């Protein structure tokens, strides 16, 4: 009986963060636990970069753990690892905040789950990882212990658990249909109802409309590094789920397309009503994830390229969130200027400005997309651009709250992420599209990428001049919040009658008067004498 077969590295990539999580509760480590965070994703990063390949299986763990990595997973794994690593660095200033150890511990747990969803190749492991990433991230959200953090956390946990249940039931149905726990077979055998449950589970995580309601609350509520990983990496768990399980041709395809588009545009519009730049970013995430869901549903080469698209979005979104954190401590004009420049560049990339990583990722997914869809994609770039322009305005107006040492160091982190977002797509272009390196620089692709930006540049001043009315984050939420409140605070009710009281109606049945009548000898004697003929008769018949 082999304990572990295949390469050890994938398993190590998951176990290492867990070890660090365990380590961070030790009294000796507790006070410097935050220092461990950058180290946690390193094995995962190494796994993504190194060519380590093949299937790892640990038959004794869970229901038999199987881990493997194919291109889509690898690129997302790499992005996730990088983002977590840099976010971990960005989290260093939190070291002296209260409950740092708790934050570190759950950070590592979430990370392990997040890496796990990309590696898992059996249903049980995938479910474990998915549950880990979605439930433990609750601690990242509520870490600041503010009222709105708790509110967001409550909404999040309720919806997340609903998602878990849907996911579990879907996986069970799938596993039963496939007669196996291997994801590949489940994906091949799964039927539409089960897939519907899975889509619900994944959609919640991926912020798919209308399951996204938690996201605009939760992402801003978390500390900046938390928001970065939530919005950049963790949402991708839902995406990989769709990529793994959604059959190439599914009855759900049109629905997903519709919901995705609704999210892509609706969230972009609603985001314009947000004052808090982090909330704006959150809505941009909803919008971007909507796009990706739509692309997954489109299938074919587009679907193949979605990881490539997601990688860029993750890096860029991480950069923007970290940038908000930096802007909060930027006091000098230079610092603020640098922030705005970096923000604009990254935003432009997300909007798909020519020659940026964003443009490449959009170009990559556009091939194999029907014309109407690719036009919609370009149109969505306009909305994204406007939303991010609005984000830049809000960022520019952001009042620096605290100061912190090492502004430069902290500025370099989003800068690094932004650079990766801009350049990494170039590096991977040929592997992922099979087109020659020069393609993005071609005239028509430039034009294709340019006109949305142009429109944005034209419209942005109007947006700045006449902003949309401000709205609180969270749109279709109030009903859910009430539900969440009710569930979270079980009102005391008078306990029902537990045990019936013990009352035999003996007093009615066995009155002493009757007993006394029996007791009177004359009666008893008469009965006795009457009994004789009775018995006699019975004996003779």
């Amino acid at each position, binding site marked *: 009986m082999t304990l572990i077969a295949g390469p050890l590295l994938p398993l190590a990539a998951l176990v290492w963060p867990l070890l660090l999580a365990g380590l961070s509760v030790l009294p000796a480590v507790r006070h410097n636990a935050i220092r461990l965070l950058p180290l946690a994703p390193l094995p995962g990063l190494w796994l993504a970069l190194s060519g380590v390949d093949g299937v790892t299986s640990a038959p004794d763990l869970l229901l038999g753990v199987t881990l493997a990595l194919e291109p889509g997973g690898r690129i997302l794994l790499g992005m996730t690892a990088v983002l977590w690593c840099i976010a971990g660095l960005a989290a260093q200033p939190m070291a002296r905040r209260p409950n740092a150890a708790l934050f570190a511990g759950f950070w590592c747990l979430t990370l392990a789950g997040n890496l796990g969803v990309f590696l898992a190749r059996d249903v049980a492991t995938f479910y474990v990882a998915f549950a880990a990433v979605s439930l433990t991230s609750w601690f990242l959200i509520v870490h600041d212990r503010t009222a709105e953090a708790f509110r967001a956390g409550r909404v999040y946990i309720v919806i997340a658990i609903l998602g878990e249940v849907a996911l579990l039931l879907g996986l069970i149905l799938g596993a039963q249909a496939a007669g196996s726990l291997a994801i590949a077979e489940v994906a091949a055998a799964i039927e539409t109802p089960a897939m519907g449950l899975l889509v619900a589970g994944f959609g919640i995580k991926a912020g798919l409309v209308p399951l996204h309601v938690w996201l605009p609350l939760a992402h801003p509520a978390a500390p900046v590094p938390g928001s970065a990983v939530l919005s950049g990496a963790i949402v991708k768990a839902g995406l990989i789920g769709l990529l793994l399980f959604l059959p190439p041709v599914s009855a759900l395809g049109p629905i997903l397309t519709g919901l995705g588009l609704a999210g892509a545009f609706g969230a972009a519009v609603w985001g314009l009503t947000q004052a808090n730049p982090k909330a704006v970013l959150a809505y941009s995430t909803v919008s971007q994830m909507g796009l990706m869901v739509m692309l997954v549903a489109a299938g074919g080469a587009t679907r193949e390229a979605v990881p490539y698209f997601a990688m860029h979005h993750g890096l860029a979104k991480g950069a923007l969130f970290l940038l908000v954190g930096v802007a909060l401590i930027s006091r000098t004009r230079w610092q603020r200027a640098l922030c705005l420049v970096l923000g604009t560049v990254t935003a432009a990339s997300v909007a798909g400005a020519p020659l940026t990583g964003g443009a490449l990722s959009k170009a990559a997914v556009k091939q194999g997309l029907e014309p109407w869809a690719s036009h919609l994609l370009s149109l969505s770039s306009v909305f994204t651009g406007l939303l991010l322009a609005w984000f830049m305005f809000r960022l520019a107006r952001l009042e620096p709250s605290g100061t912190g040492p090492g502004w430069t160091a902290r500025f370099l982190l989003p800068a690094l992420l932004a650079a990766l977002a801009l350049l990494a797509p170039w590096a991977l272009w040929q592997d992922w599209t099979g087109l020659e390196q020069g393609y993005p620089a071609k005239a028509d692709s430039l034009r294709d990428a340019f006109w949305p930006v142009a429109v944005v540049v034209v419209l942005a001043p109007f947006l700045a001049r006449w902003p949309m009315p401000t709205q609180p984050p969270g749109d279709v939420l109030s009903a859910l919040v009430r539900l969440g409140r009710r569930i979270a605070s079980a009102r005391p009710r008078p306990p029902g009658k537990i045990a019936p009281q013990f009352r035999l109606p003996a007093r009615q049945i066995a009155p002493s008067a009757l007993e*006394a009548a029996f*007791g*009177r*000898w*004359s009666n008893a*004697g*008469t009965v006795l*004498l009457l009994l004789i003929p009775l018995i006699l008769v019975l004996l003779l018949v």
Partner: protein
Amino acid sequence: MSGVTLYALTGAALVGTGFFGLIAARHLLRRVLAFNLIGSGLFVYLGAAGARGGEADPVPQALIITGIVVALSASALAVGLIVALARARGRAMLPEEDVGG
């Protein structure tokens, strides 16, 4: 009507009377007397039963004598009890039957 039948009928009559007294009477002493009546009636009947076929059957005699002894001792104990009860309660009756009269 042979003597045997006469014996038997007498016995039956005694038993009947005895049972009536035993049930009707409330004074305990009467009941003891009724009890003895029944006993005597049974013994008479038994004696008659022993006289089947002319020749004397020893067994009934033995039984009757034993029975009389037993009945005597029973009566003795009963009377003793009645006396004790009468001393304790003032009347030779069972409490539940001691109503008025």
